[in-house]
């Protein structure tokens, strides 16, 4: 669950991190009103992807009239597939220096990593690649959290690399202690996999202000943040209920399915991400093009299977579906019932190839056979079969 910039900033502000004054505008008129209130502002497109500045999604304006005009232009844009539904109008900062400060999941260390750099701003990813020593890292004990002395150490390491900051390193290190602790606690309390401030601006008067923010919440923990998700849903979907994402993926998400839309014509369903990825590989190896990735997960019951088939077939490009089931926690008979029910109720006429093995495979195969669907055992054979069947229609 990715928050938009303004949503992330609202979380920062609530936690006590300073952000520039700003107003959200969903129309050019609202942007004009915001500029009238705030004066000189930056009008910033609210989209859940990076690179909006380079795409023309940010404009600095001096008058309310300009704000209206630029907001109108930006609200008509589509950035990397995301239509702009709102702009954040924000007062400018008197920037003395830009830092980077972020918390993100480090898989290798099995912990969150805190990163701080004196080289903040748009090029931080390039800095990470070319001058990794410019980014100081800390892996706090998950129960203790980052201690003040650890953050000071991190700050001294990061800031010593920036000669321009030499005269204020001590003051900055002190000021960063509460800010970094707040950011880390916020990340943990929101179950964030990423929570970053970039740039973290040092203003001419020496204050630390979060000029941009990124916040992504762990999907497994969304049940603990229903309020946030509900608020997001309103904002992300706007009035017409659609988002900038692929419409099939939006629909899949609504249905609670793990689905990725691809370009081909062979629908693919399986239980378990690895198996589905391999199913895609097998279809490709057999000369076909997968239309999607759809993992019904472990322990999926009949209704989930029906839901999945309905989803895959909603893509008109799909010419047939390969269902690859190796029962572990998933039980063959349950899946079989779902397939049969879906075929009958949805009136599916396109080819279905079902490969079924594993837990309760006998029961499952028997059900399929009774319903007139021939179950396969080998995934390789089944993949060849579905590719052949879908090619026949060409």
């Amino acid at each position, binding site marked *: 669950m990715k928050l938009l910039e303004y949503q992330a900033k609202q979380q920062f502000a609530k936690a006590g991190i300073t952000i520039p004054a700003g107003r959200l505008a969903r129309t050019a008129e609202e942007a004009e009103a915001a500029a009238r209130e705030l004066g000189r502002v930056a009008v910033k497109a609210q989209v859940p992807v990076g690179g909006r500045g380079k795409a023309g999604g940010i404009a600095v304006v001096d008058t309310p009239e300009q704000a209206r005009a630029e907001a109108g232009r930006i609200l008509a844009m589509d950035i990397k597939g995301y239509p702009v539904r709102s702009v954040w109008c924000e007062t400018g900062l008197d920037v003395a220096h830009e830092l980077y400060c972020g918390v993100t*999941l480090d898989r290798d260390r099995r912990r969150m990593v805190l990163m701080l750099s004196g080289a903040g701003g748009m090029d931080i990813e390039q800095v990470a690649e070319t001058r990794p020593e410019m980014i100081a890292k800390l892996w706090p004990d998950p129960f203790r959290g980052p201690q003040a002395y650890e953050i000071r150490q991190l700050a001294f390491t990061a800031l010593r690399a920036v000669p321009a900051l030499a005269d204020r390193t001590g003051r900055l290190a002190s000021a960063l202690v509460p800010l970094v602790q707040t950011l880390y606690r916020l990340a943990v309390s929101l179950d964030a996999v990423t929570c970053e401030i970039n740039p973290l601006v040092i203003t001419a008067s020496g204050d630390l202000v979060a000029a941009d923010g990124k916040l992504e919440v762990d999907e497994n923990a969304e049940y603990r943040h229903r309020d946030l998700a509900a608020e997001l849903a309103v904002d992300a979907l706007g009035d017409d209920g659609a988002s900038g994402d692929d419409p099939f993926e939006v629909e899949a998400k609504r249905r609670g399915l793990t689905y*990725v839309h691809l370009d081909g014509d062979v629908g693919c369903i399986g239980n378990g991400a690895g198996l589905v990825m391999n199913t*895609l590989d097998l279809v490709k190896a057999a000369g076909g093009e997968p239309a999607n990735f759809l993992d019904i997960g472990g322990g999926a019951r009949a209704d989930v299977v029906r839901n999945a088939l309905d989803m895959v077939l909603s893509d008109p490009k799909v010419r047939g579906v390969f269902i690859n089931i*190796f029962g*572990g926690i998933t039980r063959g008979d349950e899946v079989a019932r779902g397939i049969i029910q879906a075929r009958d109720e949805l009136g599916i006429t396109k080819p279905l190839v079902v490969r079924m*093995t594993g837990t309760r495979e006998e029961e499952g195969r028997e059900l399929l056979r009774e319903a007139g669907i021939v179950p396969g055992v080998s995934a390789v054979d089944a993949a060849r079969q579905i590719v052949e069947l879908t090619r026949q229609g060409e």
Partner: protein
Amino acid sequence: MSILIDRSTRVVVQGITGREGSFHTEQMQAYGTNVVAGVVPGRGGATHLGVPVFDTVSDAVVATGADCAFIIVPPPFAADAIMEAAAASVPLAVCVTEGVPVHDMIRARAVIDASSTRLVGPNCPGLLTAGECKVGFIPNHVARPGKVGVVARSGTLTYEVIQGLSQAGHGQTTAVGIGGDPVLGLTFTDVLDLFREDDATRAVVMVGEIGGSDEEAAAELIAAGYPKPVVAFISGRTAPPGKRMGHAGAIISGNTGTAQSKIDALTAAGAVIGDTIEDVVRLVGERVGAPSGR
């Protein structure tokens, strides 16, 4: 011989009375696993599937000498169940729960690291020592005893590989599904280290997938001198970069974690790569010799 579990393993099931807990406990019993206890808070004193149920893991361990915890509880309770098993000093905990919040697992992993407990999972199919014991839900009939160790991130691919090996006559020692979550217990390197010490294991099949760098870490370990042949398979080759493929871990980040980077690292380290599961089975055959008769 085997690793982690065998016919003497005494299993306590945390969440034994749930729908999934009941079903898979029965499957495990059918496989021959010695399930000695269940734990369900508030159900202490009851009997379920022929085994005594306790309020706490600690009670179960004291009463039954359980030495392996099978954790099959809903996601919000998984980390707590893992910590409870660790606090009771259960040597092995196997958590199959899918969808555990990553911050929960970060904390649970820190507890595990400070304990004497080994953790397999979460979000994994568990493990199986062929013909002796299974903890988790690797299907009962796919494995057969033999000389090949299997370690895999993906659950269902684990089954595919085991089935492929068995059908070709190459039995297994132990198959371990480590799970695909970003924060988990045993990793490829941990399991490879265990197989190294197991005399019965003559070759190891390793099933990786895109995301993370555990396969790369395994490559380093192999490159440092691994005494047994390793045949590897990496799934997700056709995955488009940046697309999320269901496993939270299966996100391609930076320039590591791609299928190609893993294949390159493993090849350079001296492992052989199978392009398909059939390939894997053939390559194993070339290394462990003719299949043992059926």
